[in-house]
């Protein structure tokens, strides 16, 4: 267990470092990428891939926008995947646990934010001090340390927590498991609600139901809906562009019309 935990800890650290600090994609740390890699490390790629799909839909609405992260998506994913593969637990149970785990990890991370912020004046001094090499090296060292904190916490959670979690699950009454699995399918509504609240406006909000009906009544594929959605979006964009062009043209014509009317008037008098 310790060896697997160490491997997962390294996977977490490397992916976070590469994705956040070197590529700045915020893409490789998503469950759909992390879960298959974690699965591969534990020797069960197939479960990892399927977990990735479920966890990605759970964490869909949760991403670092404006610097505040409600749940640490990556650690939540790795621990949930480890829990499923290492203890042969039910996927739904693991998924319903991933959000609370991610939330706890996010609060551990936020405890350390003041520590990293304390480096700000020092970095500023180095950057303006003329020693560029030293500034660059120290920045890179800080980058290495920031994801190390959750990595270490996660190591202990996987190494010593999974077995404890397993025996705990076995001793729970049936309604707890039913409740957790009901909560996990409703948990998806939290992520989608965050997204909806962010995108929703009176002008465009009703388009939500276009997508909803296409799936609920016609069971269409997401890619097909994306294509239809793109057609609607492009059409609306072009229409707005046309009316804007027209508006500009009218303004221009009106101002020109005024000019000619003035000159006629001058001729007349």
């Amino acid at each position, binding site marked *: 267990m310790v060896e697997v935990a160490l491997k997962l800890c390294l996977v977490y650290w490397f992916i976070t470092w590469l994705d*956040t*600090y070197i*590529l*700045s994609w915020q893409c490789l740390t*998503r469950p*759909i*990428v992390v879960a298959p890699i974690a699965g591969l490390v534990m020797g069960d*790629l197939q479960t990892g*891939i399927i977990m*990735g*799909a*479920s966890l990605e*839909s759970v964490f869909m609405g*949760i991403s670092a926008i*404006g*610097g505040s992260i*409600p749940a640490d998506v990556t650690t939540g994913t790795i621990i949930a995947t480890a829990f499923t593969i290492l203890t042969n637990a039910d996927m739904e149970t693991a998924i*319903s646990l991933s959000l609370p785990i991610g*939330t706890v990890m996010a609060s551990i991370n936020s405890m350390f*934010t003041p520590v*990293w912020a304390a480096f*700000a004046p020092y*970095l500023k001094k180095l*950057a*303006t001090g*003329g020693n560029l090499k030293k*500034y660059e090296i*120290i920045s890179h060292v800080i980058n290495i340390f920031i994801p190390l904190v959750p990595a270490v916490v996660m190591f202990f959670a996987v190494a010593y927590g999974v077995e404890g979690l397993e025996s705990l699950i076995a001793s729970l009454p049936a*309604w*707890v498991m039913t409740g957790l699995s*009901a909560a*996990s*399918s*409703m948990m*998806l*509504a*939290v992520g989608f*609600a*965050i*997204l*909806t609240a962010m*995108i929703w*406006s009176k002008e*465009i909000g009703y*388009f939500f139901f*276009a*997508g*909803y*009906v296409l*799936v*609920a009544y016609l069971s269409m594929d*997401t*890619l097909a*809906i*994306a294509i239809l*959605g793109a057609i*609607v*979006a492009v059409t609306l*964009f072009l229409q707005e562009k046309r009316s*804007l062009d027209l508006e500009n043209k009218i303004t221009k014509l009106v101002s020109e019309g005024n000019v000619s009317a003035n000159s006629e008037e001058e001729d007349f008098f």
Partner: protein
Amino acid sequence: MEKVVLSAEEKKLLRKVQLRSHLVFMAANMVQMEANGMTHTLAPALEEIYKDDPEGKKEAYARSQQFFNTHAVPFSFIAGLVWAMEKEHKENNSVDGQTIESIKAALMGPTAGMFDSLFFNCLRIIAAGVGIGLCSQGNILGTVLFILIYGVPQSILKFIFVRMGYTYGTSFIEMVFNSGLMASFTKAASILGIIMVGAMTASMVSVPLALTLNIGDTSVVIGDVINSIFPGLLGVCLLFWYVSLIRKGVRPTWLIVITLVIGLVGALIGLF
């Protein structure tokens, strides 16, 4: 916009800045946010521009250390623009330091809003939708497609944006903002985003009601009755209740707690 021809030396420098513009979140912290990313991205350019002006160089580095925060993709465009302005500042002294700082600050908000909605609310959801479909069948291609749709284009755009920001500089900004199309663009991206959210809500969110009413000999499954009125009605109601809670300022962490409580209490009294 006329085509700008870069010299061999400029091209070499451009490649360096383009690669370094990936270091957006360099030593990121709540005080500076992406300021260290800006310094790292601009360092080769600043070294070149101010190579015989140590005082000017120091001031330029101090400017690059100002608080900065936007989405990682437009970050590259703004870095390219700052590069052009710093060069102008040193060579012709037509742009003063104050202008550079205020243009950076002015671009933070609108670019963050626009690209957050384009990447987080639109492209990521499309990529996840496509990826989840394949991955749920156990196909690793879903992960590969997710990276190809959501990750790789960011790098390609970064390369284009640094170059664009540098070559077209200020004239480009004026053109885009004066054309008035920015609002329409954001709107179109949001429409596509919310259609996808609606589609995925329908296929994924469900309230697994197991309640049955026994009236005489017939038993009525309440969940089926509700779904025959509108498929997944309870799920939609739940979602919009959460949306209204979020609008009222309830933190997502609380929604997670509420959901857990509903699930557990519901199971205890036999709802699920």
